[in-house]
């Protein structure tokens, strides 16, 4: 299964920031919409990782692999 190039599993929105809010704005808030949300039942013959990769990633199926990292890190610097 392939996904459109513009598709992302990390969504974001910009919370309203009032001039009376005490802290500087966080900018964007992020949340995950991981792959299992987009499928009801796993179809047969999905593409697989090698056994070594599967043990490392935590899933045999490429479709369900979703790397996560702190989305706020860039802003910290």
């Amino acid at each position, binding site marked *: 299964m392939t996904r459109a190039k513009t598709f992302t599993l990390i969504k974001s929105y910009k919370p309203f920031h009032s001039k009376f809010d005490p802290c500087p704005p966080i900018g964007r808030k992020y949340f995950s919409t991981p792959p299992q949300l987009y499928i009801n039942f796993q179809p047969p013959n999905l593409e697989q990782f090698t056994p070594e990769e599967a043990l490392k990633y935590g899933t045999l199926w490429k479709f369900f692999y979703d790397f*996560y990292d702190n989305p706020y890190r860039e802003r910290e610097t």
Partner: protein
Amino acid sequence: MWVYEKKLQYPVRVSNCNPRLAKYLIEQYGGADGELAAALRYLNQRYTIPDKVIGLLTDIGTEEFAHLEMIATMVYKLTKDATPQQMVAAGLGEHYANHDGALFYQNAAGDPWTATYIQAKGDPIADLYEDIAAEEKARATYQWLIDISDDPDINDSLRFLREREIVHSMRFREAVEILKEDKGKKKFF
């Protein structure tokens, strides 16, 4: 009955001496959406779920204990060489006063684990929806832990555990589909 393999499901390495991180990781040990709650929830619900999905709850409940062991290893490694003063400096003074360096089933705020974190309604859809929600909440907890941890080795193990939550959520969703569709039966109306 269980067969025990004396190894972790995924390696746990710790790069930095950072006892404070243990204080946060304990959320996944004895918290509401932690691995203990998950294991006990599934291994209890499985008695009163339709036959077709009993095995799924047994398998996932068992794997949750393997995850519990990984979290325990992280917490233990992060605190095992800390002096009482280092524990206090890391915000673990209250923990030390009660437990020394022992692990305990509590959340990051120190509240002890309670069975009220889990439910067994006896209705298969209600129970499976709870299980799906539990997996998504555990996934989110792992994300927040990765966000506040800067230990690359711990984060590697946490990413593995987060991915397993995704796969478990998928399997519970499929269980709902199996019960909805009565899959495999040729029924004509």
